[in-house]
């Protein structure tokens, strides 16, 4: 059984498109940085990304969409989607603030911090487990199941917060949230640690490999003996947990928990995953891609403010980048398929 290689010029075209598709996110990011750099020089005679303050601001700005997009990356690779993360984050932020305040009665801020973080993560697991069981056991489509959970988490978060923000009454959590180690913001360092862990799980473990298989062909995964049910539940728990981390970091950053903390970021986080190269049909995506995707959105938003463009252009710019990303993906897939068959 011998393969006949595709016609040379077709295969060259495919390779070129493969390259473009694989590195399109890096390419976008590079183009954006150069554009804003030139723009800043031309208009204000100042530097954009060579300025440490800007870099730090963008990094901190990226934390929330990135954490929400991180679990989402896993879910999207498996062929699902998790719309509930925005309010899981809010729920976690509010609960963290409440528990921290409640814990201060024991006289040890450290103890109450530990309690608050554990409870914040614990409460985040709840929507994850329910999402996972709805989708894996009751076969509810992910879009609908997590949309329902979006509503439930939203309601519960606002109820717990009594419709307002919950300020934290001790300086410790704020000090951590706004502190730095060797010039690196704590929030960014914590996020990098979570990123490293998630990258390892997705790219190196058998679990990660199975997520790709489930997204590629769920029947193949089932027949290969992969426990698709359990893997799916774990998937939505991971997604909720990273959202919970985002909520806890939000409370640390603002010294207050807010139910709506993640609401404006939800769509940006999904956009980050897609711009990073994941397909909404499942089967592809990487943690690094999502990082680049989140950075692209952050650079667009921060950069346009920096060069003093009306903020509403941000939406247009991010929208255009999403559309171009998906188009490149589709063209590449189509050409790849024609190449294999022709």
């Amino acid at each position, binding site marked *: *059984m*011998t*393969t006949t*290689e595709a016609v040379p010029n077709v295969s060259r075209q495919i390779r070129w498109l493969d390259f473009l598709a694989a590195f399109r996110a890096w390419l976008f990011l590079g183009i954006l940085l150069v554009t804003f750099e030139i723009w800043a020089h031309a208009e204000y005679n100042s530097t954009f990304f060579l300025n440490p303050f800007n870099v730090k601001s963008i990094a901190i700005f990226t934390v929330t969409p990135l954490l929400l997009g991180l679990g989402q990356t896993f879910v999207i690779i498996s062929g699902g989607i998790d719309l509930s993360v925005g309010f899981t984050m809010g729920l976690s932020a509010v609960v963290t603030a409440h528990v921290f305040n409640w814990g201060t009665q024991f006289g040890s801020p450290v103890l109450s911090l530990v309690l608050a973080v554990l409870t914040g993560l614990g409460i985040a697991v709840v929507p994850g487990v329910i999402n996972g069981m709805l989708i894996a056991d009751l076969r509810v489509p992910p879009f609908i199941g997590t949309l329902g959970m979006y509503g439930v988490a939203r309601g519960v978060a606002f109820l717990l917060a009594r419709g307002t923000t919950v300020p934290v009454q001790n300086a410790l959590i704020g000090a951590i949230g706004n502190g730095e180690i060797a010039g690196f913001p704590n929030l960014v360092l914590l996020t990098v640690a979570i990123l490293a862990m998630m990258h*390892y799980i997705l790219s*190196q*473990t*058998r679990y*990660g*490999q*199975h997520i*790709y*298989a489930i*997204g*590629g*062909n769920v*029947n*193949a*995964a089932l*027949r*290969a*003996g*992969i426990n698709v049910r359990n893997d799916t539940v774990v998937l939505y728990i991971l997604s909720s947990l990273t959202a919970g981390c985002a909520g806890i970091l939000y409370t640390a950053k603002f010294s207050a928990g807010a139910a709506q903390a993640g609401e404006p970021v939800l769509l940006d986080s999904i956009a980050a995953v897609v711009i990073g190269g994941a397909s909404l049909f499942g*089967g*592809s995506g990487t943690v690094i891609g999502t990082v680049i995707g989140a950075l692209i959105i952050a650079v667009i938003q921060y950069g346009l403010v920096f060069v003093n463009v009306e903020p509403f252009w941000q939406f247009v710019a991010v929208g255009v980048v999403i559309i171009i990303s998906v188009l490149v993906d589709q063209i590449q897939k189509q050409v*790849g*398929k024609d*190449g*294999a*068959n022709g």
Partner: protein
Amino acid sequence: MGQMDSVVGSSPLLEAENLSKRFGGVHALKGVSLTLLPSEVLALAGDNGAGKSTLIKIISGVHHADGGSLRYAGKEMKFDNPHQARDCGIETIYQDLALADNLDVGANVFLGREPVRRIFGLPMVDRRLMREEAEKTLRALDIHIHRLSSPIGSLSGGQRQSVAIGRAIHWKARVLIMDEPTAALGVPEQRKVMELIANLKGSGVGIIFISHNLIDIFQVSDRIMVLRRGSKVGEVRTSETNPDEIVRLMVGG
């Protein structure tokens, strides 16, 4: 024991006796018996609803028979699920091939059984080992795929089919069940898959082969079993029959 050994080679791999299965009011299989020898290709022919799928699904552990028995390599077997059958060496290749198009050849061959090595104590999937082992198996079957590290979706239908077959052989399948392996392929690719099946016979694997295509059946099978409405209506040596007879058996004319 020396005398026994010479017999073992030709003793049946698989003996099914009087298998029957009902789905509600539908009697899908009515007491069908089947024997499969090593290095033999047994073709299952029959119209839609004849019971071919039900029969192979019982053998591969997907369905439980309501009656009858199944002996595999001389031992009475009862499979609770497809994984048990697969672990024993009964591998089924369905029409959709059960491949993940987004993964490469190695990852597909090792799907669900990925080897792991430890780096600084952290378990990591050993992709190189998967690729090398997959390549070794495929080469032994005379299958050559150049783009081993590309996703399988970029391969042709025949190549994908051979990866699915290679996977089964890699995991030491002794009984290979193929459901319409050529249905979705172009003519040159069909021929290659037929060649591959002929090659496999040499390695002692017993093959059960479902097809609507009588040309394929006559090209590659040793025996043909014809089912109609859940019953076995004929079983003949391929060399002693002709397509007309098989069609007559299938339609009951």
